[in-house]
């Protein structure tokens, strides 16, 4: 069964690139959202298995979205991404409801899949 992924990021260039990379590795992209609110709407509508979630969003930050996604039944696996690295977010990454964090510069489909299977 193909994993179904929602991509949330306010930069369209990144969404396209990420989509291309993940699709090339056999993942199904069920939707793209540019901000937190539309991400939640899409998540409720499309029920993805996993969400690739940028922390820097225009309306609320990725941690908040991750919290709200965690309340869905069943909750999708959330992988946080950011241009900045984890160290700049202190304890927030560890304390968040997400499965994990990948800096965007280290994002590969392999690593993403790895996080989904943990």
């Amino acid at each position, binding site marked *: 069964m193909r994993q179904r992924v929602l991509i949330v990021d306010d*930069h369209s*260039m*990144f969404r*396209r*690139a*990420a989509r*291309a*990379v993940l699709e*090339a*590795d056999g993942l199904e992209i069920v939707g793209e959202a540019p901000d937190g609110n539309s991400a939640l709407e899409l998540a409720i509508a499309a029920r993805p298995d996993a969400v690739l979630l940028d922390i*820097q969003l225009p309306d609320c*930050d990725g941690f908040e979205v991750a919290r709200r996604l965690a309340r869905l039944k069943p909750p999708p696996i959330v992988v946080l991404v950011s*241009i*900045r*690295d984890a*160290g*700049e*977010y*202190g*304890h*927030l990454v560890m304390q968040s409801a997400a499965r994990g964090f990948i800096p*965007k*510069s*280290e*994002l*590969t489909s392999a690593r993403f899949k790895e996080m989904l299977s943990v």
Partner: protein
Amino acid sequence: MTGRRLAAAPVALGTAIGGLLLLPIAFDPLHAEGGGPLWGRLLMVSVGWSFFAGGIAAWFMRREQRTGSLLILTGLGWWLVLLIGTRVPILWTISSALEMLFLTLLVYLLLAFPEGRLHSLWERLLVALQVVVFLSGVVFAVFYNPTTFGCTNCPRGLNLLLISDQPDLVNQRATLAGRAEIALLVLLIGTLWTRWVRSSVPRRRILNPLIVPAITFSLAYAAYLLFQQLAGVAIYAAPLRLYEILITVFTVSLLLLPLLLVLGLTRLRSRRARIGDLVLELGELPTPERLQAALARTLGDPSLEVGIWVPEVKRYLGANGRTIVPPEEDPNRVTTTLERHGERLAIIVHDPALLDDTAMIGSVTAATRLAVENEKLQRDLLDQLVEVHDSRARIIEAADEERKRIERNLHDGAQQRLVSLSLALQLVESKLEGAPEAKTSLTKVRAELDDTLRELRELARGMYPAILTDQGLEVAVEALADRSRLPVEVDIDLAGDVPEKVQAAAYFAISEALTNAARHSQASAATTRVYQDDGVLVAEVEDDGLGGASLEEGSGLRGLADRVHALGGDLTIDSGPGKGTRLVIRLPCE
């Protein structure tokens, strides 16, 4: 003036000796045979000494040389009068001719007190009249033969100026002169009294010692002359008892006069000293209330009001913020305006009597001007300081905003694009399985790209900690602690709102301190505490390293100290060698 002071000693000595020599001279104030009682003669001589003593005392007071000289000359004039008892022709002639000199000098002295100068045209007229009477006596000496007028022990040729014995002329002149003199004395009393009544309270204190003896003398002497007139010029036939009493009265008042004059002068000096104190007192920043109180006290005018010109409201503001306007049509109030280069400075509304002492008004207005200008200067300085302080804070904020902007631009621009590029290359790479050489090249390119991204991340983070804006100081400091090479114990307790510029300053301080601890001072651990204390944010960082940190120019701590000071806070660093380093910053949260 010291030359004159040096001259005073021999003059004083000379005249004292001269006075002593007069004693054995058979003077007789009433020209009666046998002379008067001894106490009477001593009294007479003492008047001269009193004038000399007063004159010398006045001389030694700075600025009272005129009055001092007048007193001494008047004393000399008195002794000339006493010389009439001599029978040495030259001495007797001088004494007789210059008999009125004493009175002339005395009138001048009384009218000119305390400045030593005459105050008005009226006073000058009185003195001129007195001089005329005096000169008439000098002129008519040529007609005066004492023997004709009943002197029994006057030798012939005693009056060296005698040209022609004309007793009638002498009598007529004496009668006229006597009447003129009585009128003069009455006018003198009137003038002194009027001056006293019109004087301000402090000026009266200076005049008071003078008034009683001056008026007593004038009344007694005028009465004496009056009785002479009534009894005819042949004074030898007049009732002695009456004359004795009058002479005693005016002699005693003359004796006291110089001493009381000097008392008046000391009061004048003390008032001048109080003006000096006023200048010193007003040197400190005066409020309108204090200025008004000080001036009212010094000038002795309790109803005095001071208004300081305030350009912002275009009015004179006085004590308790009251507006002061120059009163119109009020005879009891007068306004003195103080200006500086044509600009309004202050006004003083006061009793017109204060204007009589122009020297004092001059000193007071100068002092007030100084005080008001000083206050203006200080206010301007304070305003400038506040402006500089505010602008420093604004510069810091502007710089921080700029850095935030750059960080965001980097994030949203170059970094995003490069990341997307990296992902795109990843895609290409995955499709190059069949071309290992191409794939290897591409992998290298991607590695370069990743390095670039890493450098950009460092750059962006150095610009501004975005996490501070997004998540606040607590999270940002925890991130700092996590990133540090050292174990850092974090204790943050923020209750109220902290403005972002304060958070940024605290963040940069902790960042700098932790960097120094990790890199330079070889510490093994650090602690950081952030808390609020009564509206002030306090951030402390302590490490167990080598110490020796300083606020030298160019060090990161110097820049930090500047930032902290620009925000109105302070920074202390406790870094003894070998004792670790403790940095504390305090910032007001307004």
